């Protein structure tokens, strides 16, 4: 892919070459504007529906944008007051940030650890079992976030869920427990859901990398007496640095903004404030309380965090291939 890109675009136009500054020949207007004609429609859609809204959410965040403003379209700029309120709100420090960051750290660690483990396992399996495991994790991966979340909610349902019923049958608890009311058990379920949905991507990506590690290297290390653990850290990890970097950053981006997985759980839509994370907080302040300005400010903060992670991601990508 990168090779074709590095090659200069020597496509010949019917009358003139398109390469910049073709040797002394004039390029027709059509040939010169063609890339922009091709790009135009897509750029227009992106500008109107992605870039302008991004600017707008920032503008909203500087306003007291509530029900009245949303109906009349009036401006009511209040400077950085929304941001001031967010940063002085204990909700941010005691609930939202720990939930968002703590969850992301655990989810990324869990996803990458399990995904790597499964990749190493799959690499050691014969073709039949590798196909079986591959198909199974594909099923976990393909499950839409919404239905996947409902299945986990059903498993942990307070009244009739199989988790509670199993614990009771085993005599581990007397009464069914509502696992969704406690903040930690709530996020433990989100964690299970997100890791279950996210590890297949990591496993498949790392497996592809593993299969590219020269067998001779591993065999040589084995002859030198390195055990499986040593071979993993000394050969596989250094060889797949780039792959690991990409899956870790992507998982971080995804796990920072889990929404449906929290929102759809009992109490997750704002009624249990202990369960709020940045994304859900922004949403419920906007659409639940009609405080669109305040919600926008939270959304801007979330965007900035993700932008920071994205910059790291883009730099990693750029190392890998030329644009």
């Amino acid at each position, binding site marked *: *892919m990168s090779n074709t890109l590095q090659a200069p675009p020597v496509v010949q136009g019917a009358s003139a070459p398109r390469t910049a500054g073709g040797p002394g020949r004039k390029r027709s207007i059509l040939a010169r504007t063609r890339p922009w004609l091709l790009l135009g429609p897509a750029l227009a859609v992106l500008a109107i529906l992605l870039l302008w809204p991004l600017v707008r959410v920032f503008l909203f965040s500087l306003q007291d944008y509530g029900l009245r403003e949303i109906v009349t379209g009036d401006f009511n700029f209040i400077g950085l007051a929304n941001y001031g309120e967010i940063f002085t709100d204990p909700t941010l420090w005691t609930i939202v940030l720990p939930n968002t960051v703590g969850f992301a750290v655990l989810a990324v660690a869990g996803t990458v650890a399990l995904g790597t483990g499964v990749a190493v396992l799959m690499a050691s399996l014969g073709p039949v079992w590798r196909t079986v495991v591959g198909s199974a994790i594909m099923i976990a991966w393909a499950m839409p976030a919404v*239905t996947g979340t409902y299945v986990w909610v*059903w498993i942990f349902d307070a009244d009739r869920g199989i988790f509670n019923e199993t614990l009771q049958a085993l005599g581990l608890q007397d009464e069914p427990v509502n696992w969704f009311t406690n903040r930690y058990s709530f996020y433990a379920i989100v964690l299970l859901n997100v890791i279950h949905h996210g590890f297949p991507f990591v496993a498949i990506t790392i497996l592809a990398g593993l299969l590219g590690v020269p067998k001779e290297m591993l065999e040589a290390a084995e002859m030198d007496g390195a055990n499986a653990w040593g071979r993993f850290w000394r050969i596989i990890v250094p060889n797949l640095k780039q792959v690991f970097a990409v899956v870790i950053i992507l998982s971080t981006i995804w796990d920072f903004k889990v929404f449906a997985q929290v929102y759809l759980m009992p109490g997750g839509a704002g009624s249990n404030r202990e369960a709020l994370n940045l994304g859900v907080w922004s949403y419920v302040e906007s659409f639940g309380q009609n405080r*669109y300005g305040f919600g926008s400010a939270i959304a801007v903060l979330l965007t900035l965090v993700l932008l920071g*992670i994205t910059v790291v991601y883009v730099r990693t990508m750029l190392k890998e291939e030329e*644009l």
Partner: protein
Amino acid sequence: MLVLLLLGFTLFPAFWMLSSAFDAQAGSGGQQLLPREFTFDNFAYVLTEGGFDVFLRNSAIVAVVTVLASAVLALLASVAVARFRFKFRTAMLLMILIVQMVPLEALVIPLFVQVRDLQLLNTLLGLMVVYVALSLPFGIWMLRGFVAAVPVELEEAAYIDGATWGRMFRSVLLPLVMPGLVATSVFSFITAWNEFIFAMTLLGGATANYTVAIGLKQFFGEHSNEWGYIMAASTIITIPVMIFFVIVQRRLSSGLVAGAVKG
């Protein structure tokens, strides 16, 4: 042993969804691993009285229109970035990559206002417009690789034979990037099919226009949830995604690394 444990963890939710969907008494407590009373009634109810026939149709319309519109736009744009060198090209590619990481929570507030101002709230059209925009960056990013992989010599040969650019596009480039176009389309289909936050926000007031992703909430009651119906409906939603996943599974990882979308 390790393999079996892994398979159990991986498959249990899907298995449990199916088992409950086919159980006549799902949600009444004391459920066994396999349905106590095997039935199709949950599916029948969901698709008739449950309104899921309508939600399925809505989702299909939204997804198909999204796929077609974004495929056309993304293909043209990807040819531009893969085949031409022009000012701001790299900057634009980076912008596309970055825009993709923007959390939907940030876009949903201004887009709600925008769609409302266009009087498209509670309409499928409003949702489609948003989905086209959401699937474009990934489409461009992914198709760009496919276009770049088509040997330039083939295009040159077409010109030598006297073809115009448009003719070359149709007869040389298009057939060769078709597999990429299929893969990209499957991705945007899955995105449109699974999407939740915009569907909930833009269609909130019109049950008749619900997509499958938000139609599920019909079965959540004030006091008890109809788990048999919810799981049957979940099964119906999941099946098309599973089928499409099989089609693109080989490209999934590389596509995700390049474009970073996730259902």
